[in-house]
């Protein structure tokens, strides 16, 4: 065969046509949608979440020597080293906007999974959209127990829900009672949105089942300008344990009002939220020595698992903060979905779902105090053990459960 000008031309065109394809195969990426409140009153949560997700993305996309899924590889080996790309969207804590943004992420940005959403009400509509489009939804940090009980096939939550959190508190009370402490009466103090309502319902039920007397059950208006009347009721009840379920601004107001009215609770065991936020301790930390909050994360884990400390440093470099209860769960949310996509070797929603169902990550391959990550038929991880943390000497120490504890609880609090 003689080489004519035409064949040269043909060959050149063919290789030119092939080039972009080859290039595309190299830079193949997996797009994941991240839906958080990035403006409005909970914008700070969204901004912190962004840093947590970017830290997880960095670990997945680059090589790190951690015992964490996908850390030792660059990108997803199951998909030829494809990198994770995140698309952030803002739902402004509005279920309607969450739904619209989820639809946009799926149809325009072509995401293969969505992670979100902080507010449980928004998770309701976002998970509905994901179900309709057969795209997995990772509920990273929503704690409402009603979420996974709706018969959804594409809903997954690796972290504990509020009933598990409340159960951990009552297990702790039971253990203290066995040691001879007197705990008989409880006072519940909760805000009136989905979070406070769910939390109080779970606590009321547990108190009844385990024989604790609820001497005050006070529901208050979230973001209330004054809590004086409510605190007076708490003071009158003077229960053995005060159990608040409050977001940050309300928690600050509660602590200030208690100090003004001269009420010093015997013990405070809080349902996370405001009580795990740095802002609360910056504002009124001096009045909170000995307060106990449930959590799903504890930096004490770094003593047993050094990578936790190193990853925390990476996060801190981005955000200026230590991992807290929310950012750690958000971080794990992306690791869990990326690990499943890697095993699915596909970005098809149904195949990722099947991989998620088969998830089995041992606890020491996470940054959490959990036993492991496995999803039940409803998409809930029942092995996510919560921890109880006590605020002692300007930092939190883990006091329960026994396998994660590094110190004895100071009871009653000072």
């Amino acid at each position, binding site marked *: 065969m003689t080489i004519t000008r035409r064949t040269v031309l043909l060959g050149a065109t063919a290789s030119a046509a092939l080039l972009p394809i080859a290039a595309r195969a190299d830079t193949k990426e997996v797009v994941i949608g991240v839906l958080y409140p*990035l*403006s*409005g009153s909970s*914008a700070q949560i*969204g*901004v912190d979440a*962004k840093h947590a997700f970017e830290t997880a993305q960095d670990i997945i996309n680059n090589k790190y020597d951690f015992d964490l899924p996908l850390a030792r590889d660059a990108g997803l080996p199951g998909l030829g080293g494809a990198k994770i790309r995140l*698309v*952030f*969207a*803002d739902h*402004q804590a*509005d*279920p*309607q*906007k969450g*739904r*619209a*943004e989820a*639809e*946009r992420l799926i*149809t*325009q940005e072509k995401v293969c999974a969505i992670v979100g959403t902080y507010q449980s*009400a928004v998770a*309701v*509509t976002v998970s*509905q959209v994901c179900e*309709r*489009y057969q795209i997995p939804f990772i509920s990273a940090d929503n704690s*409402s127990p*009603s979420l996974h009980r*709706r*018969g959804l096939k594409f809903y997954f939550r690796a972290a504990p829900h509020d009933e598990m959190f409340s159960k951990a508190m009552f297990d702790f009370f039971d253990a203290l009672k066995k040691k001879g402490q007197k705990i008989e009466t409880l006072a519940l103090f909760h805000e*009136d*949105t*989905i979070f*406070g*309502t*769910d939390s109080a319902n779970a606590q009321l039920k547990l108190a009844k089942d385990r024989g604790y007397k609820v001497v005050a059950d006070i*529901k208050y*208006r979230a973001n209330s300008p004054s809590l004086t009347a409510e605190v007076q009721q708490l003071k009158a009840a003077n229960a053995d344990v005060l159990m608040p379920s409050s977001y940050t601004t309300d928690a600050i107001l509660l602590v200030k009002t208690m100090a003004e009215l001269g009420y010093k609770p015997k013990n405070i065991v809080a349902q996370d939220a405001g009580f795990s936020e740095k802002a609360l301790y910056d504002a009124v930390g001096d009045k909170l020595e000995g307060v106990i909050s449930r959590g799903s994360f504890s930096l004490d884990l770094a003593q047993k698992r050094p990578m936790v400390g190193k990853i925390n440093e990476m996060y801190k470099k981005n955000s200026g903060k230590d991992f807290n209860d929310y950012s750690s769960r958000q971080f794990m949310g992306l690791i869990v979905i990326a690990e499943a996509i890697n095993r699915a070797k596909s970005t098809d929603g149904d195949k990722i779902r099947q991989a998620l169902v088969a998830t089995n990550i041992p606890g020491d391959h996470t940054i959490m105090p959990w036993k492991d990550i496995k999803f039940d038929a409803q998409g809930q991880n029942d092995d996510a053990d919560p921890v109880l943390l006590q605020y002692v000497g300007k930092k939190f120490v883990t006091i329960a459960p026994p396998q994660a504890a590094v110190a004895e609880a100071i009871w009653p609090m000072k």
Partner: protein
Amino acid sequence: MHDVTHAIRRRRDLIVAAVLVALAACVPLFVKDVYVQNIMVLTLMYAGLSQSWNILGGYCGQISLGHALYFGLGAYVTAILLTKFGVLPWFGMLAGGLISALIALALGYPTFRLGGHYFAIATIVIAEIAYLLFLNWDWAGAALGIDMMVREDSWLKFQFLRSKLPYFYFALFFALAAWLVTWWLENSKWGYWWRAVKDNPDAAESLGVVVFKSKMGAGAISAFLTAIGGAFYAMFVSYIDPDAVMSFQFSLLIALPAVVGGIGTLWGPVLGAAILIPLTELTRSFIGGSGRGVDLIVYGGLIMLISLTRPDGLLGLFSRRKKEVAR
């Protein structure tokens, strides 16, 4: 002479509306993107809601900052009837509208005696009370809200898995209905009464206008239409909670398009919604992801700009030009 031009103007309005509706109805043939369709649905919904608000707030001059109450009632009645009693949303919608109209009459009885700012304050307070009641009413879902799972496409249940078109055409119908009601009322005896009441209630009364009754009429019609919009919203989002349908923010969102577009005018709410809604949605989606709140700054800045340069609404732009031409 005046009568002839008036009749011509009214006929021209009707023709413009017919052309706009026909054009809008064709848009989904070309725009297949669900995200853009979603913005169009919301724009039409707010155009209808603001038009409904305009009947009471614009024409009759009774500034209500509590329309979230009627919106929420429409949404809740429809959702509760559907999830608890299996009543189809088409009937739930009418029930919600009627209940809202009755409540508007019951609330109007004491509040329409209040003048000016006191009426506005009363509407805020009443809507806030209703919001708190729903937030604490366990049977109605309290803070957890009502989740209406969509299992299949169904016209009977007005639920659709992925398609936005049925919602789009309903929203178009709703906006058109609210516009036609306004168009018709504008030229009726009531329309003239309302404007008289707005300008000077005492003078109107002395000339034989039944001020109190005409306010009640405006309140009931406005509440009925707003509740239909609320019922639509519940079906469209398929989940409602007190924060999402009854918060004070909604009262403002309902009034804003009319205020920005031109309060007490036929076209003001439509124009206001057509500008404000796409603006909020697009800025949030395309610059809201940064977490710096730029989208809200842009949005707030534009509203300030409009209110400073066109205090009587954007519609003023058109009428001014017309006057200049006439000169």
